């Protein structure tokens, strides 16, 4: 393994993100090659966290663009602050300036509302990390526009001219896979798919993110979640749910699992009505027993 990649993996762990070699390699390559990284995976596996931890590692700003259906250029890129411009015009009426001068004033950078994409491009202090979250929720039109921005990292504002990025940002896109992303966007980025973690990894994540959890509790929680994911659920719990549940159990001062507590806190891990109703007390008890029994068997 390249020492730089190992260093990246260790840095991610230091900042609270347990990354396997695959994740570390992809993030490292994206950083070195200055290509965007498309991260796919089910909800709650830690896609967004990658961007956050990268920003922490590089000690730079995280600029986040949350995508949704109907997101358009003005909300993502820039908009003129019309109200302020109108007020300025009103005031200029009394000042008696020449029209050209007034135009210069009201179309200055002060009157420009910079939205995330423009902020990312025009940052002076150094390259930021640009997170385009849930890009699958935006539509085809926005995707095409995003592709353009990611290709040139320059933006043309008719009144101001072309703004080029001084520092090309590190770009991370996340997708839940709810929509098929266009080929062009896929080709532009490096690709990383994050699966649900293995038992060992999940236990390490719990211990890293929830310091109050004992090794025993973390292992029991891990085993329970692994068994839960093996069942056919409408909404499989992700790592985010694991962490929430661990924190909840700590709050309730539990150091091990028991059926009553699990039933009470089931809402931390199962978020779908059908899943919750489909889980009978008997099944729950057996799952809890399994999660605890294996530990007893080990020497």
């Amino acid at each position, binding site marked *: 393994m390249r020492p730089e990649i*190992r260093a990246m993996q260790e840095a991610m762990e230091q900042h609270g993100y347990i990354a396997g070699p695959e994740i570390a390699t992809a993030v490292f390559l994206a950083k070195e090659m200055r290509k965007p990284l498309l991260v796919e995976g089910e909800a709650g596996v830690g896609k967004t966290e990658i961007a956050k931890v990268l920003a922490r590692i590089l000690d730079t700003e995280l600029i986040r663009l949350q995508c949704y259906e109907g997101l358009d250029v003005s909300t993502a890129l820039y908009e003129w602050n019309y109200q302020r411009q109108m007020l300025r015009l009103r005031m200029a009426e009394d000042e008696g300036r020449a029209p050209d001068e007034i135009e210069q004033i009201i179309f200055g950078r002060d009157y420009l509302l910079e939205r995330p994409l423009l902020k990312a491009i025009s940052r002076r202090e150094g390259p930021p990390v640009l997170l385009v979250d849930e890009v699958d929720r935006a539509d085809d039109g926005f995707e095409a526009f995003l592709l353009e921005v990611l290709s040139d990292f320059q933006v043309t504002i008719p009144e101001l001219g072309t703004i080029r990025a001084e520092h090309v940002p590190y770009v991370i896109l996340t997708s839940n896979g709810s929509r098929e992303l266009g080929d062009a966007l896929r080709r532009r980025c490096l690709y990383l798919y994050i699966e649900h973690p293995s038992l060992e990894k999940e236990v390490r994540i719990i211990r890293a993110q929830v310091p109050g959890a004992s090794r025993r509790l973390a292992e029991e929680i891990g085993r329970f979640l692994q068994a839960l994911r093996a069942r056919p659920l409408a909404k499989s719990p992700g790592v985010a749910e694991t962490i929430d549940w661990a924190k909840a159990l700590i709050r309730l001062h539990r150091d091990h699992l028991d059926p009553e507590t699990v039933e009470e806190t089931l809402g931390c891990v199962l978020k779908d009505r059908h899943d919750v109703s489909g889980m009978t007390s008997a099944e729950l008890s057996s799952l809890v027993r399994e999660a605890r029994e294996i530990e007893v068997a080990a020497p």
Partner: protein
Amino acid sequence: MSGEDLVVQLARFARELRERGIATGLADEVDAVAALTFVDLSDRAEVRRALLAALKIRPRDRAGFDELFARFWAAENPGEIPARESATPDRPGRVRPVARSAGGATTGASTAPGADVPEGTIPGYSAEALLRRKPFDECTAADLAAMERLLERLASKLATRRSRRLVPSPARGAADLRRSFRRVVGTGGEFLTLARRTRATEQPRLVVLCDTSGSMDSHSRFLLAFVLSLKRAARRTEIFAFNTSLVRLTPWISPRKIGPTLERLAAGVPDWSGGTRSGECLSEFVARYQDAMVDSKSVVLIFSDGLDRGDTALLASAMRSLHAKARKVIWLNPLLSDARYEPTARGMQAALPFLDVLAPAHNLESLERLLPLVAA
């Protein structure tokens, strides 16, 4: 091995991937070469990870990728091929490391591909293409899982109609002068915001009537799976099953996991295998549900082979009523896949005059061709 050989090897590897149906473009190959300059070429696992990222290998293509990768990048010591990635980072490369020459990438890890893999011997096939053409009644439960993904993509392509009507829109579209001026009244003559309007999107209302009798049995599962995917795209979808009686399935359908839903449905629908009485069932639909569910924007889809034991006069009158009310009535008949088939069965004969479209629905391809008809 020189940098040039590495490029050649990558090009061959990419071509093999393409022949497997794993889309890999020239740009991806360029990315792959660039990525390999950043990794330790003697570490086979690392090379694999770099290629996964640079060639953008999707999870469903991983198995094919791994198989080809194993062939192209054989380890020097075959017995020590690392089988699995582990979370611990300290597994050393299993292959003899080679000193790197300045400015170029060298690799001692791979055997010369030119000798091992003669060109053009691997037959091209695309698993996806085969699955599309496989008739439903030959599909297994495992195929259903693979089809699920294809079905989802198919259903999401269901075009949402953009009607000619212009509706107020918060952000996009042409300027709506009338509303803009109206707004200006409140701000003392200043145009602070422009009101806009854009073409409305309408999603077709879909009513699906699926014959679940024995003769349709093997098709029913897949058609229902297709319809479940459709439900995600065309939100107002009503789904009914009929054979000897009519059952409304809509409330039981959860658009997320197809498998468990189908099982739930199979458990709940009586007479999953039995004879069909289309006339009686469709008449019941017309009597109880048509007024509420079928309007001039609705598309009615009927999946059935037309083999009927019921009253054809009833069927004819039910079809006439549907045809009059709905925008389009589409009948999907798996028997149509056979070119020699003629709709001579009594049921089909009775329904024929009232259909806008009669189409086959025996494999994924035929369903794909159906989409523009439903959307238009």
